């Protein structure tokens, strides 16, 4: 007998005998008969214009070819919300555990205590990082978390406008606008100081539900959160801060400085780069807003015997119960990524987090010094920075310069898209970036600035 053409059984276990017996049991003569009640006009007549399947080996070979067409060898000084922090091996060891990887939302708490307790622990570490008492169990990403936070603020204040710092990263501002537009909410942009790169405290009218800014901001500059909190509260508005989480290894927590809602992008916390996803968004708030929280929330309780256990709680906020009255439509979130974040933070520990932030700071300062010593290269803002900073390159097209650097093995960016610093190139130094690499980048930068200008 010839070799059966590349056996692709998919993952269905049905043998010929199974099919026969099961079809008999459901009173059908064929599999097609299970679809016979669907109007013929709707059923596919011609086969799909798609290739036939392949073996695991062939599929992986194909994906390997594609992967090889990405340049991931360039040394990564890129930032803009995603950073090349090291992900310890223990993170993968945990999130690859099948009982966690292949579970779903813990609707049956007795069979899901593992993930529920992990999420309770996740909520605790996010509460610690943000300086706020209540965290949900994750959102899609940092940008949508900002949009959800603004909705919370609107419902809390009965107001509609958001006063958003121009130094909040543009993709996040875009997402916020996209979410706000259908609801007729206004997104007002306040500029930032061209010199320091910091967001000035703006005048707020009584239509403003929330002030929104990033810590550090999209230029890498540290904002004065306390001052903004004071001003926002004075105007009856809430302060929402989008936090780069590793920064609190050095900086005071935004919650501790008066922010009402603190959100952020979890990528720096044990996620890897992954082209930006999957990762997770976190959201924490004061007790006052707990019932306005979007998404899952895990609470501690006891069982019939008084033993401690965990359940999803305040479910009435959620869409599957309140439907159109829900605080949000979010259902599936980013649980496994949140778990990875928890494992990473527990791996770091308080001391590790401080060292990490201190290490990034020292490297950023050193890199800024070395790189601005290249002529044609200057800081684009002189405010305080801790891991990431904007460089003004004396070139006609910074995008061309970034591309040239990448071809030479150095990844920087993104290019600041708008505002006073528009055209500046962001450079970020994680704990992995060595002195040698900084010197290499400096040389490449010198070449490129010469060439391109």
């Amino acid at each position, binding site marked *: 007998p010839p070799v059966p053409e590349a056996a692709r059984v998919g993952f269905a276990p049905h043998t010929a005998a199974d099919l026969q017996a099961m079809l008999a049991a459901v009173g059908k003569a064929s599999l097609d008969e299970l679809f016979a009640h669907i109007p013929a006009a709707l059923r*596919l007549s011609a086969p799909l214009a798609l*290739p036939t399947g392949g073996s695991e080996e062939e599929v992986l070979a194909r994906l390997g070819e594609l992967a090889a*067409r990405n340049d991931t060898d360039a040394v990564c000084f890129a930032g803009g919300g995603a950073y090349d922090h090291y992900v310890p091996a223990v993170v993968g060891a945990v999130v690859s555990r099948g*009982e966690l990887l292949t579970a779903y939302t813990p609707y049956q708490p007795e069979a899901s205590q593992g993930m529920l307790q*992990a999420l309770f622990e996740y909520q605790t570490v996010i509460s610690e990082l943000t300086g706020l008492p209540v965290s949900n169990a994750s959102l899609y990403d940092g940008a949508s978390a900002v949009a959800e936070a603004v909705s919370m603020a609107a419902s809390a204040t009965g107001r509609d406008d958001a006063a958003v710092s121009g130094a909040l990263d543009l993709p996040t501002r875009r997402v916020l606008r996209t979410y706000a537009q259908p609801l007729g909410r206004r997104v007002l942009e306040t500029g930032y100081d061209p010199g320091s790169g910091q967001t000035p405290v703006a005048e707020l009218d009584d239509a403003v539900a929330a002030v929104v800014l990033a810590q550090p901001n999209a230029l890498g500059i540290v904002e004065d959160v306390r001052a903004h909190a004071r001003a926002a509260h004075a105007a009856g508005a809430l302060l929402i801060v989008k936090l780069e989480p590793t920064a609190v290894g050095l900086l005071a927590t935004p919650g501790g400085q008066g922010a009402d809602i603190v959100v952020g992008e979890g990528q720096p916390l044990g996620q890897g780069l992954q082209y930006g996803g999957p990762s997770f968004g976190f959201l924490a708030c004061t007790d006052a807003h707990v019932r306005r929280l979007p998404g899952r929330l895990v609470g501690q309780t006891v069982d019939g015997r008084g033993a401690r256990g965990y359940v999803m709680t305040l479910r009435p906020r959620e869409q599957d119960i309140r439907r159109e009255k829900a605080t949000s439509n979010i259902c599936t979130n980013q649980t496994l990524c949140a778990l990875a974040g928890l494992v990473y933070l527990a791996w770091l520990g308080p001391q590790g987090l401080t060292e990490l932030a201190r290490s990034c700071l020292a490297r950023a300062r050193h890199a800024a010094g070395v790189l601005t010593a290249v002529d044609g290269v200057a800081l684009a803002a002189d405010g305080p920075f801790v891991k990431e900073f904007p460089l003004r390159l004396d070139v006609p097209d910074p995008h061309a310069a970034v591309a040239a650097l990448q071809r030479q093995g150095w990844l920087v960016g993104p290019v600041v898209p708008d505002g006073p610093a528009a055209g500046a190139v962001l450079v970020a130094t994680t704990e992995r970036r060595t002195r040698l690499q900084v010197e290499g980048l400096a040389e490449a930068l010198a070449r490129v600035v010469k060439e391109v200008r």
Partner: protein
Amino acid sequence: MPVMGDRRAPEPRLFERSRPGRRASSLPALDVPDVDPTQALPGVELAHAPPALPEVSELELLRHFTRLSHRNHGIDVGLYPLGSCSMKYNPRLAEAAAALPGLRNLHPWAPDEAAQGMLELLAHLERWLLELTGLHAVTFQPAAGAHGELTGLMLIRAYHEDHGGPRRTIIVPDSAHGTNPASAAMCGYEVVTVPSGGDGLVDADALDDLVDEQTAGLMLTNPNTLGLFEVEIERLSAALRRVGALLYYDGANFNAILGRVRPGTMGFDVVHLNCHKTFATPHGGGGPGAGPVLVSERLAPYLPAPVVAREPDGTYRWDHDRPRSIGRVHGFHGNAVVLVRAYSYLLFHGADGLADVSSRAVLNANYVAAGIADVLPLAYPQHQPMHEFVSTGKDLKRHGLRVADLCKRLIDYGFHPPTNYFPLIVDEALMVEPTETEARETLDDFVAALRSIVAEAGTDPDLLHAAPTTTPVARLDEAKAARELVLRWRPGDL
């Protein structure tokens, strides 16, 4: 649970294991001058103390989560017939694909030149999804189904705004998943509910009466959440077209018709797919997923920006020049590496293999339905269910029991319970979706367990009341959880 010892022994919270100064982490040595934050950051408010993260060794860390994993059920452990969730086998092939350094280590803002492989992959995936759905264009930004719904509704709204105003209402069946109305509300729409007829399908006459010039669109799953195919879909879509309204397809149940029926053919203008359901990307205990949204030609201009574009020279780039785009719904490019997993699933199965998926999914559901029909009757027996079915456990009430009790008892039989109390229109709903990757013997065991529990309900109802008794914790007090709101660990908590 651990192989030995007391299965009820609680696992301490990681924080309880903390000892000051203990740690797992090691960081690269500082090879540049150290700086004093107080000097480097004048006028900046610094942390007095670091956040109180756990302080544990790496072994304690790994042990803690290994033990927690022992307190969790997953597809890898056994059947997980959660209706509406397509809890099928998550191929490890996909995990191997996601682990390829060239994909895993790609920075989201890498220049397009440096991301040609990923862009090509997305372009190919687009081709697959368009062919499978019969639609015209895609956005990969939505991170999950509900995110896709919101995005899709925004597209519908943007379209109407360009054609005489946004309109006011979105029609949703009473059997719809909660995310449908919730998404409509988040998109500024009033939700109008269309009732299901006595046969579990959308009441077409009622829909005719509801549809008007203010109707922006109708959201539908097909098969619907009862697992029944809306055979009158053409009439429903005609009713909406008559007033210029659009049709939204909720792809949660796409597994039922994969490779056999295309939403585009049914008249849908917007579709979201659920990669973590139909394409078997791991659910991860509640995520991450991916909810790409596909649209017809007329909605394409409004898609979130950027979109993948192919240059004449065969290279790929992100096209940001989308003047009529609604904007963005994700801070990066969506859950890219979840999409990689989904693509590996498609490549593995191929066109032919995907049709096998749906046929076997439907067979498995009908096989289980037939096995319990006499003891847990279908809520709507008039139509043949597709990849899932909804039974009613209302007869349990005779014994003072509810379907929740049956589910908890099922746990003691070693089976994860199906979805229950959804859809809301079914009294004591039990929604079963075995998926195509379950073997006949497993389904037989599951049927036997359900039948035996129904029998116990008559003979020994306390077995059901008391269940589960084999889990690390018994039934939990949800009221207390909501009343007392303990949402994080605090020093001193025990």
